[in-house]
């Protein structure tokens, strides 16, 4: 191969890399704009507040919004305390050793498991073995397990970034470990922890494979934890795949995209506040 001069190589590399980056960014912008352009015209208050009729061919998406919110809430309510508790244990109550390694390994493995496996597992354990049926409860529990590693990791990072000096101050003032954790460490780490929780909310809103087999796909308005429900993502999937109604599919997708955008903005806001506080 003929060697290029370093100057030319530098230029070529720079242009090549920038072009690739540009393509990546444009693909993403394209996806978002494409969905929004076709979905926004469908959106109005009625679309959001009316229940779907005729398999989703007409009407709105209200019951799927309710289902998504219920499922997400349940998942967060279960996963957040477990995740934050684990993070507290790993950062404040242990100095490493085999137990910590096992816990970390477990969390990291869990993070890599594909959502369809969670779906399979939730189906066999919650839906059939425990006889919860396709329900918000089955779906919420499955999602909670899925979100757990994310919440552990983000909380751990948030807690670790609290300056050690704060802990020394608290201890030297005669606080117990738990008082130090609840009165000094957690308040300082809160924005970071919330960021992780918000990211998990985003993930659970977008999840399909794990929820379709555990929460089912009933379009009725859910009435209890044991009602089957259809999330927005599942609704969008069914509308699009079975060609039931393209306008409604675009409308649902637009809502999903807007929700994700809002969540990302919120995390950015929180992270910035968090970073400002400690620098």
């Amino acid at each position, binding site marked *: 191969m003929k060697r290029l001069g370093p100057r030319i190589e530098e230029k070529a590399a720079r242009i090549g890399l920038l072009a690739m980056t540009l393509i990546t960014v444009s693909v993403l912008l394209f996806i978002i704009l494409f969905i929004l352009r076709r979905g926004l015209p469908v959106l109005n208050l009625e679309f959001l507040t009316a229940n779907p009729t005729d398999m989703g061919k007409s009407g709105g998406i209200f019951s799927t919004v309710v289902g998504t919110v219920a499922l997400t809430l349940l998942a967060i309510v279960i996963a957040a305390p477990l995740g934050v508790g684990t993070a507290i244990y790993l950062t404040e109550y242990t100095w490493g050793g085999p137990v910590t390694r096992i816990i970390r390994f477990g969390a990291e493995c869990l993070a890599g498991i594909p959502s369809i496996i969670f779906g399979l597992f939730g189906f066999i354990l919650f839906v059939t073995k425990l006889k919860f049926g396709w329900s918000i409860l089955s779906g919420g529990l499955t999602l909670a397990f899925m979100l757990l590693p994310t919440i552990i990791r983000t909380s751990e990072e948030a807690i670790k970034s609290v300056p050690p*000096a704060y802990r*020394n101050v608290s201890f*030297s003032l*005669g606080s*117990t470990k738990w008082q130090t954790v609840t009165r000094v460490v957690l308040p*300082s780490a809160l924005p970071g922890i919330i960021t992780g929780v918000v990211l998990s909310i985003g993930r659970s809103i977008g999840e399909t494979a794990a929820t379709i087999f555990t929460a089912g796909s009933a379009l009725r308005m859910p009435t209890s934890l044991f009602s089957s429900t259809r999330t927005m993502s599942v609704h969008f999937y069914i509308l699009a795949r079975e060609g039931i109604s393209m306008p409604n599919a675009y409308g649902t997708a637009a809502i999903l995209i807007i929700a994700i955008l809002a969540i990302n903005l919120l995390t950015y806001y929180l992270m910035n506040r968090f970073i400002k506080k400690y620098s």
Partner: protein
Amino acid sequence: MTNDTAIEVRGFSQYFGEVRKLKALDLDVKRNEILGIIGPARSGKSTFLCALNRLNDLVRGSHHEGTIRIDGCDIYDPGVDVVALRRQLGMVFATPVPLPRSIFENVAFGARREGIRGRTRLDGIVRDSLEKGGLWEEVKDRLETSGLKLSGGQQQRLCLARILAVAPEYILLDEPTSGLDPISTMKIEESLRRLKKEYTIVLVTNNTKQAARVADRTAFFLNGELVEIGMTAKIFTAPDDTRTDDYLRGRFG
């Protein structure tokens, strides 16, 4: 042990893993005195302070030999309540560490933790402590601003007030003025002179002149050993050990 001995250290060594950071210390701290501890960097001065309030326990792999008695009670006895011990020995660190909350909440930290809620009681404790710490006049109109907004010297006095609010009997200071300008330093030293009427104070300093100014007695640490301890005037004018003399004359450290 005489009645005016507050802290009695006997054959005390502190280890971090294999490293022996303090070597068989023997010394006493007398009640209501300011004991200055001087010595070059990394000579074990701060480690000694953290041995007194058992903050060293938080370091991985730390263990010790020998005894430390405070008010006659062996503080490393398994039955001792570390939390109560730490409340008795308030500590000020080298860099001021206000918690990221208001001045008021910083000082009220200990009281709130004890479940004290009434606003008047909290107000009283905060005012009292800030007055003793010599900061009240400067901040009385802006108690709700963040503790981080204060100047370095004010922050350090805030930290002092914060420990006073927990009503300790001892105050441990770890190079409290190392990052401060001369005026702030002077203010802190004034507070200390006032406080020794009520408290027993151990002052670690890397500034020998500060020890000369405020300490009643001074101890000289070198490489984790106590070289000598005695009345400040004697240490600074006629030390027994040539190493003390060398250090004070600036031959090393």
